[in-house]
Structures are given as C-alpha cells and as structure tokens.
C-alpha cells in the first residue's frame, strides 16, 4: 500500500510506522500458544474475604502498637540521625557510646546544659554539653577518660550549633 503525505511530515510518519512495526514484532514474539487449563478457570467469583460469625471481642481493644518513631521523633522534618565515631568516648558518662546512632532535633533552641551537636568551623563536629555563662561558651565532655577536657570557644572562632541531641541508640 502506498500513501502520499506532505514532505514536511514524512519523517514523523516514517518513525510512527517504524514504531508500529516494532510493536507488532514484539507482540508476535509475545503471543505464545496458551493452554487453557479448565481448573484455572475456576476463579472465585468473589475474591474478597467476607467476615462471618461473631466479631472478635478483642477488636474494640486494638491499638496502634508501639512505634519507636513516635517516641523518638518529635519533629520529623527537623530530626536527623548521626553516627558517633567508633573510637569516641567523650560522652560515655551520659550514655553516648562509640558506634551509637544519635537523633538531633534542629528545631529545639539550644540552651545551656543541653547536649548538642556542635561544629567549630575548621575543626569538625562534636557532641558535648553546652555551657553558656555570660559571654563565655564552653563545650563540656562527660567521660570516664580524663583525656577529654572542656573546650572554651575563643574569640574569632565560629561555633555552629547544629541541633540538640534528643536521644542515643545503642545496639548491643
């Protein structure tokens, strides 16, 4: 069969025909003889489960169950997970162990006494207790290892409080 089309749309028509042929080719490949198995025709007319008999007396007492997210995450979009470096023991007295996953809530306003994730620009990120006395800011470790000392933020140093640490998860 021959058809005439305007020259300007000829390439488009050729492409469409090529696609059409490709589809047909594939369809050919795909159509395999099918054995009709009478048994498989016996599909239940109504496949949805119908509740019968008495309702369970426990239905009334069903609850949502325990969801750790609900307990640990107070504000989803502002909550982030971090991993404590394996070797880190600077906060072990507070129960934050190397390898723990901590949750940091950025939306909480950090106040003196809170455990925070802080970055001293140029040094790196660290979890410590924040202490603010007047204009003096310190990051306090709580460790059985005496090597860790409070770190005073000096003038000219930039301290970034990422957020407040709200929990630490230790997997045994």
């Amino acid at each position: 069969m021959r058809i005439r089309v305007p020259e300007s749309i000829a390439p488009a028509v050729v492409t469409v025909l090529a696609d059409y042929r490709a589809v047909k080719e594939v369809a050919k490949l795909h159509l395999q003889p099918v054995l009709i198995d009478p048994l498989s025709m016996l599909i239940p007319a109504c496949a949805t489960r119908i509740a019968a008999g008495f309702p369970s007396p426990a239905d009334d007492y069903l609850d949502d169950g325990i969801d750790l997210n609900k307990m640990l995450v107070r504000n989803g979009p502002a909550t982030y997970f971090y991993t404590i470096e394996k070797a880190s023991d600077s906060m072990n007295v507070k129960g934050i162990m190397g390898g723990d996953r901590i949750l940091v809530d950025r939306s909480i306003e950090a106040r003196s006494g809170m455990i925070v994730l802080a970055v001293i620009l140029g040094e790196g990120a660290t979890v410590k207790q924040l202490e603010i006395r007047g204009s003096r800011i310190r990051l306090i470790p709580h460790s059985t290892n005496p090597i860790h000392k409070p770190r005073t933020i000096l003038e000219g140093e930039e301290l970034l409080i990422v957020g407040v640490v709200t929990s630490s998860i230790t997997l045994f």
Partner: protein
Amino acid sequence: MARSSVFALVDVNNFYVSCERVFDWRLIGKPVVVLSNNDGCAVARSNEAKALGIKMGDPWFQLKDLVRDKGLIGLSSNYTLYGDMSARVMKILADMAPRQEVYSIDESFLDLAGIPNRIEHGQAIRHRVLKWTGLPVCVGIGSSKTEAKLANFLAKKRPQYGSVCDLAAMTDDERTAVLESIDVGEVWGIGSQLTKKLGMKGITTARGLRDANAGSLRQAHGVVMERTVRELRGDSCMSLELIAPARREIMCSRSFSHDVTTYQQLRESVLTYVCRAAEKLRRQRSETAAVMVFVQTNAHKDVPQYGRRAVVSLPASTDDTLILANAAVQGLKTIYRDGYRYKKSGTMLIDLTPKGMHQATLFNGVASDPKHDALNAVMDKINARYGRSTLALAGAGLEKPWKLRAENRSPPYTTDWNQLPRVS
C-alpha cells in the same frame, strides 16, 4: 486593579550545594559546584563559585584549572540526599500556609491570602527552614504567580530586601520603579528568544512588558504572553495546582559513561533500569501493563545515528521485576541493531494502575505469581536495608563498565542507616 490573591514563591538558594553543606561543614565558605549526571557540567554553584565566573552548564573538564588554582570543589550529584531534603522543606512550608503547590525540587508556591504582616511571615518562613534544615531560602510575594516569581528574583539578587520581597505591598509608584529596573528576560516564561523579539519592539524591562498592549502581544506571541502581561499587572490568571498529578508512568534512563557498542552491555543497562523502575513501581503500589524500551546514539557526535523504541504490552498488569525484565529484553531484541555506538538507553513503565485493581485475565487466571511476589518483596527489603542494588538480577551485570561517572558523590546522609554522617 483587583489585587485579591496573594502568592509567595519560596525557593532554596543554590539548593544542591546548600544540601551538601548541611552535612559537610568543610564546604562552607569554599567555591563548590555540583555536577550533572556523569559529572558533565556544573548544575549548581555556591556564591563563591559564581564569584569565580563559573556559569551554569560550564563543562567540568574546563574548570580543572580553578580546582588547582582556586580550590574549587566539584561534587557529583546526590539526588537521594536532595530528594530527602526537599521533602523536609516542603513539609515545613506546608505547615506555614493554608495551601501549597510544590513547583519543583526546590521551589514551592504558597497561598498567603488573608495572612497579615506578610513580610514578617516571609521572614518566619525563612528562619524556620534555615533552623530546621540548614538550608537558606528566599521568599517572593506578589498578587500573581508571575509577580511572586519576580519578587523572588528581587529577594535573591538585591540585598536591601533581606531575602524577602513583597511586590504586592508596594505602592504603585514603587512597584513601577522596581519593574523598570528589571530586564524583561527575568520575567517568568520570557526566554532568550522572546527577549530578543520583545527588544525589537522596544520592550526591554519588566515594566515595559507590563505596560505593553496585551491585545497586540497576544496576536504576535499567543495567549500565554497575554497572560504574563496580565499577571504582571497583578491580575492572577494561574491558580495553585494543589495536587500533583498521580504519576502515570515511571521512567528510568541514563547516558552511558562512554559509548556502548555491544548487545551484552546494552542489555545490562536496560535490565539495571527496569529493575530500578520496578522498585519505584512497587513503592508507589502500582502495576504496569506495558514496558517501553529505547536506545539512542549520540546526536551531538558525527557518527551514524540510530534511535528506536519498542513498547511491549503485557498479558496482565504486573509489578514483578522478573516479568518486566523479560519484557524489556524482548523489546530490546527487536530494536537492537549492530554497528552503532549507543549513548543512552532507558525503560519506561507506562499505563500504570493501582495494584490489585486489574482484572484477572481469562487465560492467565490470577495474574501474579505468589513466589515472585515474595521474591520481589525480599529484594526490596534487602535493598532498602543494605543499599540499592545489593540484590539484583545477574543479567544487569556486576562491573557495569557503561555506568556513568559519579566520582565525587557524597553519601546519602539522611536515608541510609549505614552511611549517616559521623561525629565525634
């Protein structure tokens, strides 16, 4: 003029770079670019990188001197991270306005009608997003979407606005003076071609466009242009699109790191993409009735050109990786031709329906094989837990020499239990 609507456009400054900086503090204050797929060219720039004269789309290989001389850092794009951070921003914005339209990965329109002290509210939005995510945003407010877009441009480019600009709150004289100072090419929908054409008519500023004759512009450039003019006058012609249309298809496609010439490698790529697409399909609890496969040579190179696609219809809708992979390979077989240098392949799942809605077919009995369902479920679970492609079809290849380059990609900090950012 009826100025009854109020829209805000909120967008994240240098979104991709800003996301990277939230989790890598060493990037703060440094010139950083994020590169397109395959580490091809710059698609996001920090202000420091912009100051070095780097433009959007600059090829990475041309920037190597700046790496050496100016400490420029180039990062591969990390869409897993950007997607998660985007979701956080959108969630925060949704709570700060009665209605929201998510416009792109880093932009959202908000309906601010009825909200008093809009500038203050804009500042509150800015502060909350910055505090909760670490991402800086700008807020533009106007009586139409086009005006909000323009206000956002002002908020971003002119420091006197403090990152929040409300065009709707200005007096007519103020607004006219501001629009006079903006090139017409900055108006939403006015690209470089239109800018040229309007320039020939003597329209070079946003004000010029606003005050032009809408009727004659409509005759010359169509109804969209007329709408833009009306929107610039504060007359809202486009409302918020509140519900993102349900995805009717899922596409998975990439360019190769280098030309692929063998069927074997092309097959690997197609299988990789179809697995990924099937995973997405199951995540949104849909099924597909047809798979499209396509291959393409590099149109920018002087080599013999070839590109074809094939659609394979399935006897019944399915979300089974094995069936979809089979169909994709059948499709590839019909369109593969020897002797070409292929640049790209891809698969697209079309004709999606919610899972479990389809009819069992006459010949097929129940369409899904419970064994396959179990296998797919296990595969998804393992890959969710241990990372993408931990468990995949062997046919998708192990080495994947065609896989695109992403030499300097940051980890998915917020979505992978094993790759969380480390702190001491």
